């Protein structure tokens, strides 16, 4: 199928980079605002807390109920945010989506109303004496604390988190994107507001819009609706250096669980910005990205050891993770089988079928991005983050060219760093 040659139109307004993709494919407008800052122990917690306070009320909609009613009145416009890590950056992503006017017989104003809403939510919060509302800060500190405490509830994501924490002990990447419980207490409405101002002024801001509009229309709205935070549009500098692995760390943790969680963290030099990214995608795909991959076939289908066994590549950080849920007694057997798959990758034991299937799966996944406004935005933002321009079709072409020797080259530099096992309280 011929790919639609969709491309973003771009401009810069103050410290905001604007990216607009005119499209009639969707029934909605999708808006994303990315604000990124380097991960650091000092700032990670206030940066994470600020969006929680921002969602409580603005200068013109000070009560949370009014704030939310406004969204409901806009045909239940979606508004939310996510906080995550991309490389050693902490990214806050605000999202808003709203139906296109023609489906609800409105005049053409909904996009302007949505941008005005999200602009005010981010840049014009409710203030009391030059600080955030004390009531909101106090309530949201509690919310963030409860969220951090709740990480342990979902054992699969807890184990994944712990594995990274152990592996990246001496890197900013060890930090959880929601921050640290012990830093919450000292935060005051005043200190949080100062940290927020600083964050807004000094961080790269990327505003994306996908929908039935134009760059000129969006630019006009943004100029009038976003209170400029001053400053210049700055860029991202992805650190791609990796510490060398001296010896494999093994960490066993005991909790009251029925199923054991086996996670592994591996280092790779291949990152999104580098020329080896397509080869790393293939490495991950053959190893554990799909149900036809080595991990699924060998750990689950051949040995019935697990319900899930897969691998994932974090291209900005250059880390590959393996995750599996197993019967506790099968720990050694599972580690053994997984390590055998890693050796097979090093030996280049990869069939032509595995190559074609993996290429087809990766191409399919990449093409599907274009059917979702938010995924299209996220893909483009990867270029902003890494400084490496990539198009969906370009990446598909790169993947098609990969041979087993390229994968072996990746396998040679993939190093197992940490084995983490979450098990029950019984046993030695």
């Amino acid at each position, binding site marked *: 199928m011929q790919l639609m040659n969709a491309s973003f139109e771009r401009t810069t307004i103050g410290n905001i980079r604007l990216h607009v993709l005119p*499209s009639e494919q969707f029934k909605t407008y999708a808006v994303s605002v990315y604000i990124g800052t380097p991960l650091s122990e000092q700032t990670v917690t206030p940066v994470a807390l600020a969006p929680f306070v921002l969602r409580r009320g603005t200068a013109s909609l000070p009560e949370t109920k009014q704030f939310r009613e406004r969204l*409901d009145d806009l045909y239940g416009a979606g508004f939310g945010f996510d906080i995550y890590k991309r490389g050693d950056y902490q990214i806050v992503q605000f999202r808003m989506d709203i139906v296109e006017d023609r489906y609800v017989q409105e005049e053409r104003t909904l996009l302007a109303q949505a941008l005005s809403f999200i602009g005010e939510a981010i840049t014009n919060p409710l203030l009391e004496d030059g600080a955030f509302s004390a009531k909101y800060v106090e309530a949201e500190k509690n919310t963030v604390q409860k969220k951090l405490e709740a990480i342990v509830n979902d054992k699969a994501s807890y184990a994944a988190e712990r594995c990274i924490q152990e592996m990246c002990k001496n890197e900013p990447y060890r930090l959880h994107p929601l921050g640290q419980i012990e830093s919450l207490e000292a935060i005051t409405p005043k200190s949080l507001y100062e940290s927020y101002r600083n964050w807004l002024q000094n961080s790269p801001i990327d505003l994306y819009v996908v929908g039935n509009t134009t760059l000129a229309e969006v630019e006009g709205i943004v100029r009038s609706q976003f209170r400029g935070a001053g400053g210049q549009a700055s860029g991202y500098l992805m650190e791609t250096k990796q510490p060398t692995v001296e010896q494999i760390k093994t960490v066993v943790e005991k909790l009251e669980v029925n199923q054991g969680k086996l996670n592994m963290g591996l280092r790779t030099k291949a990152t999104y910005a580098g020329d080896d990214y397509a080869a790393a995608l293939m490495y991950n795909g053959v190893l554990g990205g799909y149900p036809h991959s080595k991990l699924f076939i060998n750990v689950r289908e051949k040995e019935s050891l697990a319900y899930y066994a897969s691998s994932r590549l974090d291209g900005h950080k250059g880390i590959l993770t393996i995750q599996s849920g197993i019967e506790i007694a099968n720990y050694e057997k599972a580690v053994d089988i997984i390590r055998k798959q890693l050796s097979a990758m090093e030996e280049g034991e990869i069939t032509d079928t595995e190559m074609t299937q993996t290429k087809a799966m990766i191409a*399919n996944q990449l093409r599907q991005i274009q059917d979702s406004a938010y995924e299209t935005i996220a893909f483009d933002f990867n270029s902003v983050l890494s400084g490496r321009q990539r198009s969906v079709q370009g990446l598909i072409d790169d993947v098609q060219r990969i041979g087993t020797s390229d994968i072996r080259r990746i396998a040679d530099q993939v190093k197992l760093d940490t084995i983490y096992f979450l098990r029950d309280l019984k046993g030695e």
Partner: protein
Amino acid sequence: MNVIRYEHVNETVYHEKLDNGLDVYVLPKKGFHKTFATFSTKYGSIDNHFQVEGKQEVQVPDGIAHFLEHKMFEEPTGDIFATFASYGASANAFTSFDRTVYLFSATDHVMESLETLLNFVQNPYFTDENVEKEKGIIGQEINMYKDHPDWRSYFGLIEAMYSAHPVRIDIAGTIESISQITKEMLYECYHTFYHPTNMSVFVVGGVDAEEVIDRVRRNQAAKTFEPQGEIKRIFQPEPDSVHNPQKVTKLPVSQPKCLFGFKEAHDPIEARALLEKECASKLMMDILFSPTSAIYQTLYDEKLISDNFGADFNCTPGYTFSVIGGDTRDPELLLERVKQLVNDALERGIGEKDFERSRNKKIGGFLRMLNSPESIARLYTDYRFKGADAFDMLTIYRNMSLEEVNTRLHEHFNWEQLAVSIVADPKEAS
């Protein structure tokens, strides 16, 4: 081929009932690269006791529909995932209370993947050995859910509400129940529920409707199916009252999870009326408990709920209940406050303004859902099995009156029908 045009949302569905009884639906999406296809059977975890016209009555072990779903992926030639992978198609399946759905999404070789989907689901291959092997994998899946507090609190609530209806059975069954499963039982369930008359195909995305329907028609014409009588699903009578007003599950959690809901008495009504009832109920739940509501804001300010607090409504021919709740520091206090606040709402009734706002939200939500081929397929098939048209929802919301919602409000919140499910840390056992 029938053409069903939905003018208000600018979508068209093409439908054909094939000679063997299979329903085929296609919704072409202009501009989409992806095609999403489902092959569904009206057969889920609740169908554990049945009788086909002219045959013996059968009772099967818990979890067998889900077990069957797992086993369908195995073919004499090996695992079917590999075939999908060679077309670059991503395949999967899931089992719910009343459906089993096989699906794939692809951006290339769509027709080949569609053939693969039809063929593997219509080609059961069970051996004593492969059935035994699957018990290990599903055993791990069951163990995984055992550790999952959200799943446990949800199922705990259903178990608290229902004493006889099989909705109370965990979809995957238990390690004990699946140990009884044999290949003979799987074949029996397969031949009963995977008959074309009990199934439907839904394809949505960048496809040509004519081409898809033609492909399915030819594929099906080449296969023969014995005619099958009607399937009678047997359910033990379920008492109107809740089974157990409060169920507590011990699991290590950072703070308790508290889900509660109201069970409604069995009310057999026809499909369209059921859909209207569901829409009115969902609107009512939204007005009462959404993050915009006064109740949510009050409870949040009192630190009794966190932002994972939510409310949902399940409305089917066999069971109807609400699910409300989330994490809380104090389940008892939360329930006490909810009771006061809901009683206030019952006294005042729902006002015009809240009703309009929530109605707009539902209309917007429906339109946003139409961006997602996966959601369209799920919703459309789901309601077709119930005998209704999901796209009618938009009209239903537009024509709904405030009175209907207020009537539902007073019907639903009957404190004698309340059930509660709490997941609490064993160390903080109260």
